């Protein structure tokens, strides 16, 4: 069982997140591995542990600071870390990013076939959830998204998927791109031994030329969308806070009635 997990370097949810020149500000200090990618790492490790053999690769794309994301994956127990870093990638939209990841996946796959790429359900900065679909399409592999449970058997992967109006079970042949939700598992905590080992573990760095990708296909120039304005929203004005001394329910109701909401 050979699995590659994509991990993203994102601003910590608890930090003051912001934009710089239309792009999400990413710094080494408050950046981390996207929390939902922990579920992807966990799913991959569990599949390899259940199979009793195999390897897990963690792959990230981004500037020098993004290495923090694969270091975190190493702490959780993945076997190999890959970091695609090239200035020409900056400003890529989801389709450019998918091209880069697909090229890196193919490079690993050509050395020895992969069974799965596992991703998180979304990155908690952009939250578009588009990457797994774009990646599956780029690779022309099976696409199984939003898995709340998954299993691999006889060359097929089967997932359960909870949509607002239905619960689906979906199967597809390997190789496949699978995205997992935060319902899929409970991510493990890194142990001391792995934390120490992760510091020294090698991280393979690839540029676009290592992936035989034309820089014109990715980056801000190829992006089909551009953020042209980003500004912090002011806090809600005129907030009212009352402490219940016996009539707060009535006050709340009166507030809703005045607003025409009740």
């Amino acid at each position: 069982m050979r699995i590659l997990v994509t991990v993203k370097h994102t601003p910590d949810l608890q930090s003051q997140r912001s934009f710089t020149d239309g792009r999400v500000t990413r710094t080494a200090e408050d950046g981390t591995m996207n929390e939902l990618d922990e579920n992807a790492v966990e799913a991959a490790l569990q599949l390899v542990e259940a199979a009793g053999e195999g390897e897990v690769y963690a792959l990230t794309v981004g500037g020098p600071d993004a290495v923090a994301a694969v270091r975190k994956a190493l702490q959780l127990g993945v076997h190999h870390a890959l970091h695609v870093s090239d200035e020409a990638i900056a400003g890529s939209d989801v389709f450019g990013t998918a091209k880069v990841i697909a090229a890196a996946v193919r490079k690993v796959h050509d050395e020895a076939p992969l069974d799965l790429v596992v991703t998180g359900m979304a990155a908690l900065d952009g939250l578009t959830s588009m990457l797994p679909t774009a990646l599956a399409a780029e690779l022309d592999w099976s696409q199984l998204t939003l898995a709340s449970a998954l299993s691999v058997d006889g060359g097929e992967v089967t997932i359960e998927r909870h949509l607002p109006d239905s619960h689906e079970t979906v199967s597809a042949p390997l190789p496949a791109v699978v995205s997992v939700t935060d319902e899929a598992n409970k991510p493990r905590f890194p142990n001391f031994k792995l934390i120490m080992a992760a510091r020294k573990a090698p991280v393979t760095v690839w540029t676009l030329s290592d992936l035989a990708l034309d820089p014109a296909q990715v980056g801000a120039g190829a992006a089909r969308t551009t953020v042209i304005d980003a500004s912090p929203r002011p806090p809600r004005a005129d907030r009212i806070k009352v402490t219940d001394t016996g009539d707060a329910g009535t006050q709340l109701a009166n507030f809703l009635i005045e607003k025409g909401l009740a």
Partner: protein
Amino acid sequence: MTIAAVLIDHRHGAVTRPALEALTLARSLGTPVAVWLGEAPSADAAAQLGEYGATEVRVVDAADARVASRAAAAVGAASGDADVVVMISTFVTKEIATRLALATGAGVVVDAAGAELVDGKVETFQTVFAATWDVRTRINADKAIVGVRPNTTHATPADSPAAATVVVVDAELPEARERIVSVEPVEQGDSVPLAEAPVVVSGGRGTSGDYSLVSDFAELLGGAVGASRDATDEGWISHEHMVGQTGTTVTPALYVACGISGAVHHRGGMQASGTIVCINMDPEAPIFEISDFGVVGNLFDVIPQAIERIKEHRGA
């Protein structure tokens, strides 16, 4: 002339309110044509689409359109001449939008709160980072796909109804690798789906698992019942009710948070709501920072009193 295709969301043959919102938005972007996947719409449904401006209703009766690649091919077959494709933003349509964009070279924005034409290009606006930032995005590509959140456009009929001519579109759909093994519908009852509800009343840890008051309040206000991650993890209420970054994102006119502290995961799913009201025992809970009206108190005291006052007001 700009053509704006709208993927129509429909349930049991009826057009959903978000679909009418999307048609309303599409009228400001071009000449709307409706795209309908599934068995042809009833005359009433087609007429309703006409009232909201659809000049045509293009029907693709595609089997297995649950698989994203097939659904995208079906939408693509019915929107080849469109400059803009509008759809309601859900986990399912985001996949359709992605596949359609790869097939057509279109630029995509999902989770938009609105869109307009500026110098012939579509620009979208939306909130990000748990609704703490406003972002405006220009779609550079010639074709634009916009996923719009429910409750962000007010659905209004067109000044005069359009023809809504039903046209059946033949589509060659690709063989899918994915095979749907089983589908179990989730019982919705008569209630409005969470994402579309104009009012959401949510309960969290403070309910201790007792959702009766939250449900009563939601029913009185004509809303849907939501929950925090804490509550769904406890098994007090099913996952479909979870409001948050990994559950359902809601933007109702009114959001009532009962016994919910307001962790960032929850705020990310509701902070763009119109008016926010909260009831919480802990005066330091972060939910108060984003509430227009907050009560420090016990929801088991506050909700019954509020219900009584609203009933009294309505009876008066």
